[in-house]
């Protein structure tokens, strides 16, 4: 019922498959839960839950509650020992569901799985619960975890001969003390939603071939419960991939025939540039620069087709192998984005030839490709291109928003139209228009101790729809091989406009970087046109980026936020090789807890889904959505587009090396 790996209402020691994202909706009596579980690593599961408890508060009032769980499998199951997991339920919310547990699960027969656990607080089998945080919640109560009486719970899961159908039975140590108001608490409802007659729960669970699961349960001798869950897994989805085949490598003749005379032919560079540009264009890349000699060729390309950098590199390398005569034995491919050279990938042509059909060719080409910072593009090496260039796109957007003031959540969704004119590789002008289909148009309620930098969202949605979301002039530059810069001027985001500048130092091959951003901004009018209100502020952050593995990145931003508060934001994200991105962030500033509303600090989760994994065709487009507080004024950061780290990371070592699976595709 909690959306994490569990029996029925009790936890188990199981984990979801690595990377799985699971949505669960469950309910019984007057209680329902909507949960998102994410298997963050092979052993660590995180759950975000939004619960509705009708007839819970005094006078039959409804309570809406957010809660977070963490579940960690300490030991995986072996032939002779069970899997053992430790977990924290509702560890930083209002503690309505707060519990801690240590649990073991074991396959005891081919079709029978047993679970036995110890529980604290809500799972203690007593009425001695962790006290409710009647304030704003959001701060972990470390001193109360695994304290007090201990309860025992457990259960069995039997896989029936009918494929997909399982039968569950469990002994519950949750006494539903508050829901039954056993202790006569005046703040809770005096008429219980159900009466707990039994410790035993039973359930029938059916898993469809698609993986969706439906569960019907009989709970506590009194209630019928239902649960539906569905999942997706970025790692194991199987959608195929439809694209034109890459050019094959043509083997070269004997070395003695590798003449270098061709380099002296008139117009050879222009001819090669034309033919290479044609081949690259078929694979969605633009030739930005070319440097040729008889043994070595270096190209600068802007990949506009593939969301996976190694695929663009692989295609470019094969195009080079088709165009250049046999004497050229060394290729260098420099990835460019918004006029910024991101990294140089050096390859030997001989490796391309010998590895194209070799055993372990993916691993071997990854080993033999060298990634480092690129040289500057000299004027003589720039291939002529026509400017200005215009691009546009449109698409839906959606965000699940949480209100810290009334505990409600809703969807903010609509259509966004984007357009941009590139006046040169580094200078562009463009913006976006939005038309919402569903949004919160409620004006802020009550006084605020902070400038209303975000809590006026409802007014923006009411007055400025459709509205001009952004309109900026952007310039990028690169003062040193590993230093990137950006200046943006105009309507920077839907609520603020002004000037934003950023410098980022990050070498292509290193796994960390440092950035500095400064913004002088003024609050925009609610109509989302060109006018401004009186509030203005200078904000900025120092940012550290740490690529902990090919998939996991941590980002720490320290600085001043839009309401003038000072603090920091920690973001942890996992980005799969195929571009799926799942992450969470938390912001803590010097604003007092009450000003934030429930939760005490700003936090949220986000998911980015690359469209290529949905359409099975190559595209760089993606859908991004999230669940976050949108109208908390504390900890609000300017939402500038084109932040440098986001812009350059795909062209750096971690992302390239993590995507070599597609080099040969």
């Amino acid at each position, binding site marked *: 019922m909690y959306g994490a790996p569990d029996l029925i209402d009790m936890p188990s020691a199981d984990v979801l498959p690595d990377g799985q994202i699971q949505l669960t909706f469950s309910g019984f009596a007057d209680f329902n839960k909507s949960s998102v579980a994410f298997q963050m690593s092979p052993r660590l599961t995180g759950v975000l839950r939004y619960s509705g408890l009708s007839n819970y508060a005094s006078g039959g009032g409804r309570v809406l509650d957010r809660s977070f769980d963490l579940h960690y499998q300490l030991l995986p199951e072996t032939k002779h020992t069970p899997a053992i997991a430790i977990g924290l339920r509702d560890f930083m919310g209002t503690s309505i569901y707060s519990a801690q547990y240590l649990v073991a699960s074991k396959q005891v027969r081919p079709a029978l799985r047993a679970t036995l656990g110890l529980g604290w607080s809500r799972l203690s089998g007593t009425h001695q619960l962790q006290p409710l945080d009647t304030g704003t919640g959001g701060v972990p109560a470390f001193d109360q975890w695994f304290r007090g009486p201990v309860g025992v719970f457990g259960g069995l899961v039997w896989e029936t001969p009918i494929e997909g159908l399982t039968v569950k039975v469990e002994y519950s140590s949750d006494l539903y003390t508050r829901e039954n108001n056993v202790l006569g608490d005046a703040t809770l409802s005096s008429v219980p939603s159900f009466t707990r007659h039994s410790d035993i729960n039973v359930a029938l669970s059916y898993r469809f071939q698609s993986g969706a699961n439906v569960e019907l349960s009989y709970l506590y001798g009194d209630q019928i419960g239902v649960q539906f869950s569905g999942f997706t897994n970025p790692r194991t989805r199987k959608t*195929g*991939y439809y694209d034109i085949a890459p050019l094959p490598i043509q083997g070269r003749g004997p070395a003695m025939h590798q003449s270098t005379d061709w380099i002296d032919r008139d117009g050879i560079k222009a001819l090669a540039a034309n033919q290479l540009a044609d081949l690259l264009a078929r694979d969605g890349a633009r030739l930005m620069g070319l440097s040729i000699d008889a043994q070595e060729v270096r190209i600068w390309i802007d990949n506009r087709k593939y969301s996976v950098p190694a695929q663009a590199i692989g295609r470019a390398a094969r195009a080079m192998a088709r165009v250049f005569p046999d004497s050229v034995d060394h290729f260098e491919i420099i990835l460019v984005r918004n006029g910024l050279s991101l990294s140089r990938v050096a390859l030997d042509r001989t490796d391309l030839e010998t590895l194209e*059909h070799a055993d372990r060719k993916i691993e071997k080409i990854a080993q033999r490709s060298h990634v480092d910072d690129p040289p500057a593009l000299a004027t003589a090496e720039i291939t002529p291109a026509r400017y200005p260039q215009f691009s546009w796109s449109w698409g839906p957007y959606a965000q699940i928003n949480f209100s810290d003031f009334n505990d409600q959540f809703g969807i903010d969704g609509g259509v966004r139209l984007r357009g941009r004119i590139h006046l040169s590789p580094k200078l562009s002008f463009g913006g976006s228009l939005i038309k919402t289909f569903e949004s919160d148009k409620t004006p802020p309620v009550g006084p605020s101790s902070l400038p209303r930098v975000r809590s006026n969202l409802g007014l923006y949605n009411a007055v400025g729809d459709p509205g001009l979301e952004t309109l900026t002039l952007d310039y990028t530059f690169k003062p040193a091989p590993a230093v990137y810069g950006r200046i943006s001027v105009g309507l920077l985001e839907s609520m603020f406009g002004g000037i934003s500048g950023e410098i980022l130092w990050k070498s292509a091959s290193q796994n960390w970087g440092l950035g500095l951003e400064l913004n002088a901004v003024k609050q925009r009018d609610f109509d989302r046109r060109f006018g401004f209100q009186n509030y203005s502020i200078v904000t900025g952050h120092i940012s550290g980026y740490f690529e902990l593995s090919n998939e996991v990145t941590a980002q720490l931003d320290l600085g001043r936020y839009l309401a003038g508060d000072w603090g920091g934001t920690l973001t942890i994200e996992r980005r*799969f090789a*195929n571009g799926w991105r799942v992450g969470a962030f938390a912001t803590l500033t010097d604003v007092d807890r009450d000003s934030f509303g429930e939760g005490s600090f700003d936090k949220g989760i986000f998911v980015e889904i690359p469209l290529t994994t949905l359409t099975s065709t190559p595209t760089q487009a993606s859908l991004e959505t999230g669940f976050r507080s949108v109208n908390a004024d504390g900890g609000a950061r300017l939402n500038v587009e084109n932040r440098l780290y986001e812009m350059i990371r795909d062209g750096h070592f971690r992302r390239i090396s993590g995507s070599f699976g*597609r080099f040969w595709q």
Partner: protein
Amino acid sequence: MIKRLSAAIGALFVLISCSSNQGVEIDTIRETINIRNASNAAPDDNPVTQDSLKGITQKLIRVKVPRKNISFFAARIATNGDTDTYMSRAGQSVTVTGAAVIATRGLGFDLIGRSGGERSEYIFLDDDHKSVRIRPHCRQTALGSQHIEIAEIKHTANLLQERCNTDQGRHINQFWVARNGDPLRVHHWVGPELGIIEIDWLN
């Protein structure tokens, strides 16, 4: 129908006939581009005639993937060591070593590679770009000579058959090879999604 078939092969021939088999001459590249980008003219299911192949010196194959209802002609556009890669006008490619298929591209669920040896290994990519390897258990049997007809030409071929088991099920590979060792026809399993790919060498 026959006219359309002849036109399809003829168009392919025109596009490839300018290509040098040396492959590294700058002037040959445009033809390769044309092959990759010409509109996809799915060939008819009619038998190929010698008339429609007249004058074509480039190696040409006909490929079918019955499970996916895919069918196309492809011309050899690259040789790298002992492998030949054939590409269709619509950008599908098949790479072979002798009669054995070792890679496909542009078919949706492609065979990324195949290693030889006593127990061959088929390599695919999952959606997270990680290698997925399948190692069938196969038993080879020589079934002697057979008479087959390809493009109105009768051949006497040696038929080699492989009966294979994988976790996904069973399949049979069949290789028809001319007495001089040239491949004539192959029915080769290339993965659980595509199943068997059928290739006829037309010239």
